[in-house]
């Protein structure tokens, strides 16, 4: 069986600086995979490459076994890879509804996600629809960011540090939503520094260390010390 | 990218030496000094048209260097330098016609007046940034053009000429006239030629000194990121303002010298966007932005082009426009920038090199 999304020997460069070194990675249809690792381990760079924000070699990224690397981000989302960017990055001059609807431009099919179903998932957004995005709380903003990516009906939803800067209660809400999204069949890749959140949500994990994969496998297959060793590189 | 060539002249006292000069640049310094001496004596052997072309090269190169200092180093993009050229010209005419001062001695005073005026003008235009700054400088130049068109004593909108009596007994005229055995018109041109040469030397020296000083380092920091520069304690606004005033002073000098030579001024000529900004930008872009050599080369090339093509009227300007846009898009470093990148030659090196002796040298 071909993986839904796969990388082969993926390398990511920012000019002369190399952030990711030859990463092999895959995620199967319906799976949730978490990428964990310390600050600067190359996790976000990896997601940026998957989403097309950073250029990579064409055969480095395969979707359904077909090379899609090197495509610009606006093509990637249309072929079904949507990113919830780190720091949420909502459009500050626009309302919640406009932010969500903006996501429709990247539509890659119909897997049941639209403005209504997203507002059913996050009822608070329906109440706040006309408010400017920056007036929302951090957790609510994260919901908008997830909804905005989800509304494109992606085959793979990439989530970059969605718990960062949120209160524990908000983290719980956000991950409850993630598991609901998973339940409805969407394939998810999360990048996460919060180990507990990552381990509870994921079927499989990859641990990144200095731009390379230091550990990979089922989420329940390792004990705490193995993961910490891969995480900090001792 | 420069060629760091370690020289025997430098004692390897410590393991690290900060070095700005290159061997090429030291050889060039000698050549440059010789060239300046040669240019000083040029009136003795050069023809009058040649001198006139050189005057134009000097004045345009001075303006281009200043514009380059602002845009290429301080991030100040002005399309309103004609304000200060025009004010320099008008200040000179006012000093001569209204004040009855000697024309030659009026030149530095005219420039000084312009520099003083640039302080309030600067505090106004500095309220805007980036592209807005550019257009506001242009509005200010228009305001001066319209205001001076109201000055009846200097001819209002149609302008005025210097009276023969004033230009006829300029300081030093008689002496030069006898020294070179020429008539007073030619002698006047020689004095103006020297003034123009002096201006260029002043501007080149000023730019070179400034860029090699701590201010130059600060400017590089500003270019790399204003916030970063401020966070390491560089007062970006003060440096930018200083450069703005310096550029205004030099533009004032240029205006005073240029309009002394033509002996005629009008608001449209004095505050011409085309002559004092469009051409200057072309010169800097063609020659090479953010280099000292570029604007000088650009000015020489511009005067050659002008002599060859100015008979073609608007077509000449169309060629300049296309050439300018093409260079900006295809070779944004200009002639000198590309040459220097290709050969590693810097005649006016302003970057510092950290030599780690005696191990192999740094290449950045």
């Amino acid at each position, binding site marked *: 069986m071909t993986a839904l999304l796969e990388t082969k020997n993926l390398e990511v460069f920012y000019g002369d600086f190399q952030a990711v070194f030859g990463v092999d990675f895959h995620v199967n249809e319906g799976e949730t995979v978490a990428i964990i690792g310390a600050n600067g381990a190359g996790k976000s760079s990896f997601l940026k490459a998957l*989403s*097309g*924000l950073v250029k990579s070699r064409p055969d480095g990224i395969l979707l359904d076994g077909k090379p899609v690397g090197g495509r*610009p*981000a*606006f093509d990637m*989302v249309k072929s079904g890879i949507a*990113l919830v*960017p780190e720091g949420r*990055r909502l*459009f*500050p*001059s*626009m309302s919640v509804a*406009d932010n969500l*609807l*903006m996501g429709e*431009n*990247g*539509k890659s099919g119909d897997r049941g996600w639209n403005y209504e179903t997203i507002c059913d998932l996050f009822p608070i957004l329906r109440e706040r629809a006309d408010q400017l995005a920056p007036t929302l709380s951090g957790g609510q903003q994260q919901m908008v960011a997830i909804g*905005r*990516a989800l509304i*494109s009906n992606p085959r793979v939803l990439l989530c970059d540090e969605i718990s960062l800067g949120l209160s524990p209660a908000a983290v719980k809400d956000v991950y409850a939503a993630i598991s609901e999204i998973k339940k409805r069949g969407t394939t998810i890749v999360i990048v996460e520094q919060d180990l507990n959140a990552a381990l509870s949500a994921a079927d499989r994990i990859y641990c990144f260390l200095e731009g390379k994969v230091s550990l990979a496998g089922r989420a329940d297959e390792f004990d705490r010390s193995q993961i910490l060793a891969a995480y900090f590189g001792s | 990218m420069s060629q760091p060539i370690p020289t025997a002249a430098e004692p390897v006292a410590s393991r690290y030496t900060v070095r700005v000069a290159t061997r090429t640049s030291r050889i060039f310094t000698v050549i440059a000094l010789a060239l300046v001496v040669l240019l000083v004596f040029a009136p003795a052997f050069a023809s009058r048209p040649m001198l006139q072309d050189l005057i134009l090269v000097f004045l345009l190169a001075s303006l281009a260097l200043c514009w380059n200092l602002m*845009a290429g180093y301080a991030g100040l993009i002005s*399309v309103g330098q004609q304000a200060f050229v025009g004010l320099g010209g008008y200040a000179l005419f006012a000093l001569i016609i209204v004040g009855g001062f000697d024309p030659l001695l009026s030149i530095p005073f005219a420039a000084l007046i312009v520099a003083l005026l640039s302080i309030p003008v600067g505090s*106004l235009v500095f*309220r*805007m940034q*980036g*592209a*807005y700054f*550019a*257009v*506001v400088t*242009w*509005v*200010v130049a*228009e*305001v001066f053009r*319209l205001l001076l*068109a*109201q000055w009846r004593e200097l001819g209002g909108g149609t302008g005025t000429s210097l009276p023969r009596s004033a230009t006829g007994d300029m300081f030093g005229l008689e002496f030069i006239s006898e020294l070179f055995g020429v008539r007073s018109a030619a002698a006047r041109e020689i004095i103006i030629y020297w003034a123009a040469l002096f201006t260029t030397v002043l501007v080149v020296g000023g730019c070179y000194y400034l860029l090699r000083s701590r201010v130059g380092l600060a400017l590089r920091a500003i270019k790399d990121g204003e916030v970063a520069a401020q966070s390491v304690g560089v007062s970006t606004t003060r440096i930018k303002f200083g450069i703005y005033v310096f550029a205004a002073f030099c533009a004032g000098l240029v205006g005073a010298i240029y309009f002394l030579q033509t002996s005629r001024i009008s608001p449209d000529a004095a505050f011409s*966007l*085309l002559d004092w900004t*469009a051409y200057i*930008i072309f010169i800097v*872009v063609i020659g090479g*932005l953010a280099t000292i050599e570029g604007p000088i080369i650009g000015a020489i090339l511009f005067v050659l082009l002008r002599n060859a093509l100015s008979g073609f*009227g*608007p*077509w000449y*300007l*169309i060629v300049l*426009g*296309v050439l*300018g*846009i093409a260079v*900006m*898009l295809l070779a*944004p470093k200009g002639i000198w920038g590309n040459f220097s990148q290709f050969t590693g030659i810097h005649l006016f090196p302003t970057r510092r090199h950290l030599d780690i002796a005696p191990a192999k040298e740094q290449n950045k």
Partner: protein
Amino acid sequence: MEHLNTIVQGILLGGLYALYAAGLSLIFGVMRLINLAHGDLIVLAAFVLLAMVTALGLPLPIALLILLPFAFALGWALQRYLLNRTLGDDILLPLLVTFGLQILIQNGLLVAFSADSRKLSLGAIETQSVNILGLSIGVVPLITFAVAVIVLGALSYIFYGTGLGRRLRATSDSTEVVQLMGVNPRVVFAIAMGISFVVLTIAAFFMGIRSNFDPSVGPARLLYAFEAVVIGGLGSLWGTLAGGVILGVAQAIGARINPEWQILAGHLVFLVFIIFRPRGLFPKQ
């Protein structure tokens, strides 16, 4: 009554300035670019209208309607194939390229049409006026103002009422994030420039009817447009109308005192705004 008349004339003149400014404001709002050739493009459009009327014998309003789609296409292409290549972190490149365009357009027009002063003619309606509250008001200035309001209303609708407007606003907020939404910012920029060209062509129509023009008058149009945008508040569409009106009234009052002071008065009011309200009347956020 005389004073009131001056003010009313100034307000109506402001409509024309708002038309000059609307396209410039749009471009700045979406891509933070000041198109220094904006004024010259207005003059270019006026000359093209003139040529369509004289060479093809078309009635002027028909010529305008025919020209508008071509104007959009030209603006689109200019952005797509030239100006998009200048966009980056440095504002120098787009400024200088549009500055170069200005020189090209002015001198191209000189070659094609000579330096002679021209005018567009709309026939008898130009001299007609209506009486409102005892003031005799020209029909053409009234139409200009009405069209300015309609154009700004239409732009407002596009911006805040359509999917395209959402893309325009989002691109203005972040050119990177819109890509994650499947939007190519370069395409959005090209569409914005196309719209700007449509608006500046409409402005050219009214400029040509209301005053003489020659290849050299573009820069002044750019400055009026810029001043209206800044006075109104950067990126605010209706502010642009207010800015145009303030500029128009200032010029009308200046001209009333001394005809030579018309332009100067406008510039001075603008500079006063820069000192006391540099972010304009209705700044965004």
